[in-house]
């Protein structure tokens, strides 16, 4: 594979004795993606000082970096499916056992108008030039909730707005850990991924908005960064929250989607939303055999159906768009390019013309993610985006109730309000810097730079992916999951051998440490849930039925006094 620990060109062995920079703010936002930047704008509008830390440069960071094409909304147009009640009913039905509607009402419904207005203010309207919305339907939803729009400039516009409003930004700073004082989160520490400068930020309120967890399962192409969601989103927030004593929820669920075979690009929504057909190697449309909604059904049902067809040697699976009207086809190809800028070039280079050719598709790599487009997984939040640890909040894809662009924006705005209010309540009282913690974090973070450490992070990541894919895939059993756990125990013995020679690789090393923490929480939750739910998201061979009598609710995971993950079950009532 060519993994090596030799420094790349022009890089001398970096100094480990860099000075630390100390900063102070009202609100600290970790992760400058869509949720984080929306939170920043709202907290700033409320008059608070805001500081953002991101591993990349915020104009192009996170899952929506290169663009995005759809935003889910009900618009109260009079149709029965186009209402708040219809959205909540669908969420309660399709994410039953994972969604908490009392939270969804606050973090999505109550902020939807503010979110749509935010797009107008940014100059990135969800409308077409004639003022109307282009809406499509997919994934089992009762009506065309997806607004198609051109989000290719959304992140640059958000980034510029945040800087213009006077938020401070630490670009290319990877957060290592949260700081705690008297059981309250009071800041965070991190390092610059090129220069190694160590930053200590004190804050009155802290938001984790670091996205989901990717790169923990094998990629079908063998290319780990060829993943559906952003490969920089590696569960850093979830792992930091866990170490700080926060509760995680819905982390047992494996998320998979359907992608062009070879390129793990988003686009399924557009392909099925515009009326593409799925056919197997025998030329048959097969989705109706799996789901009465057919190709318009839930994503996990599409993934399950394709996995089953392929296992039965009825592949290859292809999408047929040849019957679409020229206008629809043009819209489809344009929308695909909004969601993944390079997808049309990929088709071009491969010689695929959707008006003439079938597109081969397959299931993507696995990832830790919520059960569907309206329910997330990760750090458990309440109605104010607050976690169980005082001073710590979460939003976007790293929060257990939030998923997709629409909830990244609304929960970001909602968290921004909560952060501003919390910081205001804290008044002038800024916690002192917990120096022993800072010292411990610093030693841990820079340890891989020691010359004696010689295992590349890529090798560690590869084995982690193999262990999870083998034991924690779309079909699970107690023995398989325990085997995965034992393999992680063995892998853990190599943790202190992972080495880095550049700060870039140090950042990646930290990512694989966070990935293994999320993997442990995932196995812990999945072992605890002795039933199956949401199709291949959590399918247990030893408990194949959904058991609402005993398991209608969330499995949550927290650390015990020894720092190990322990599960508990939290029932949720549904009307």
């Amino acid at each position, binding site marked *: 594979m060519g993994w090596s620990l030799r420094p*790349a*060109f*022009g890089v001398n062995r970096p100094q480990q004795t860099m000075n630390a920079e100390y900063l102070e703010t009202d609100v600290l936002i970790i992760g400058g993606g869509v949720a984080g930047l929306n939170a920043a704008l709202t907290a700033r509008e409320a008059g608070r000082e805001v500081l953002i830390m991101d*591993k*990349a*440069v915020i*104009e*192009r*960071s*996170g899952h929506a*970096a*290169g*663009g995005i094409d759809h935003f889910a909304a009900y618009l109260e147009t009079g149709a029965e499916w186009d209402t708040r009640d219809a959205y909540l009913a669908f969420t309660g039905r399709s994410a039953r056992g994972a969604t908490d509607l009392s939270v969804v009402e606050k973090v999505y419904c109550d902020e939807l108008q503010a979110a749509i207005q935010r797009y107008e203010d940014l100059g990135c309207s969800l409308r077409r030039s004639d003022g109307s919305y282009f809406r499509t339907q997919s994934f089992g939803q009762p009506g065309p909730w997806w607004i198609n729009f051109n989000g*290719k400039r959304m992140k*640059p516009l958000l980034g510029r707005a945040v800087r213009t409003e006077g938020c401070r930004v630490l*670009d*290319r700073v990877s957060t290592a850990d949260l700081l705690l004082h008297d059981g309250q989160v009071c800041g965070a520490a991190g390092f610059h*991924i*090129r220069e190694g400068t160590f930053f200590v930020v004190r804050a009155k309120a802290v938001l984790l908005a670091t996205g989901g967890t990717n790169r923990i399962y*094998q990629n*079908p*192409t*063998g*290319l*780990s*960064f*060829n*993943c559906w969601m*952003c*490969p*920089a989103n590696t569960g850093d927030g979830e792992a930091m929250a866990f170490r700080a004593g926060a509760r995680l929820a819905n982390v047992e669920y494996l998320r*998979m989607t359907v992608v*062009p*075979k*070879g*390129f793990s*690009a988003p686009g399924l929504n557009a392909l099925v939303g515009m009326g593409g057909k799925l056919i197997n190697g025998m030329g048959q449309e097969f989705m109706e055999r799996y789901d009465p909604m057919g190709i318009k059904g839930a994503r996990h049902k599409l993934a399950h159906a394709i*996995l089953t067809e*392929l296992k039965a040697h009825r592949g290859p699976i292809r999408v047929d768009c040849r019957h679409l009207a020229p206008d629809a086809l043009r819209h489809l190809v344009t929308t695909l390019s909004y969601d*993944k*800028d*390079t997808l049309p*070039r*990929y088709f071009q*280079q*491969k010689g695929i013309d959707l008006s003439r050719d079938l597109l*081969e598709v*397959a*299931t993507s790599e*696995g990832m830790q993610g919520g059960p569907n487009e309206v329910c997330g997984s990760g750090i458990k939040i309440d109605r104010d985006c607050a976690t169980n640890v005082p001073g710590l909040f979460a939003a976007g894809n790293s929060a257990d109730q939030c998923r997709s662009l629409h909830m990244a924006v609304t929960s970001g705005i909602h968290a921004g309000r909560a952060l501003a209010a919390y910081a205001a309540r804290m008044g002038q009282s800024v916690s002192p810097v917990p120096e022993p913690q800072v010292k411990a974090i610093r030693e841990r973070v820079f340890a891989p730079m020691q010359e004696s450490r010689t295992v590349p992070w890529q090798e560690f990541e590869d084995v982690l992916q193999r262990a999870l*894919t083998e034991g924690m*895939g*779309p079909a699970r059993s107690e023995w398989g999951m325990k085997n995965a756990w034992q393999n992680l125990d063995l892998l853990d013995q190599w943790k202190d051998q992972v080495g880095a020679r550049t700060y*870039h690789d140090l*950042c990646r090393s930290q990512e694989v440490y966070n990935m293994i923490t999320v993997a442990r929480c995932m196995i812990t939750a999945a072992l605890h849930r002795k039933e199956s739910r949401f199709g291949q998201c959590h399918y247990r061979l030893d408990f194949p039925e959904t058991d609402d009598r005993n398991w209608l609710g969330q499995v949550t995971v927290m650390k015990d006094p020894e720092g190990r993950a322990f599960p508990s079950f939290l029932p949720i009532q549904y009307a």
Partner: protein
Amino acid sequence: MPPVINQELCTGCGTCEDSCPLDVLYMDPEQDKPCVKYPEECWHCGSCRQDCPEGAIEIRFPLRMMVSAGVAPY
């Protein structure tokens, strides 16, 4: 491996270096031109391609993406 920078069109402005969400592109201080330092960490998101003011960046997909062969390990 992606991205490919057309050295004749590239003016060395450094925009692409800041655009990359995966820290793949670095300005080479000796050449004053960007260089693809971590090609295997490219997400093919096209941020660099979109932001390049000279249109000097194209994406070349790895062979494993171009030829859709292979059985998924699931």
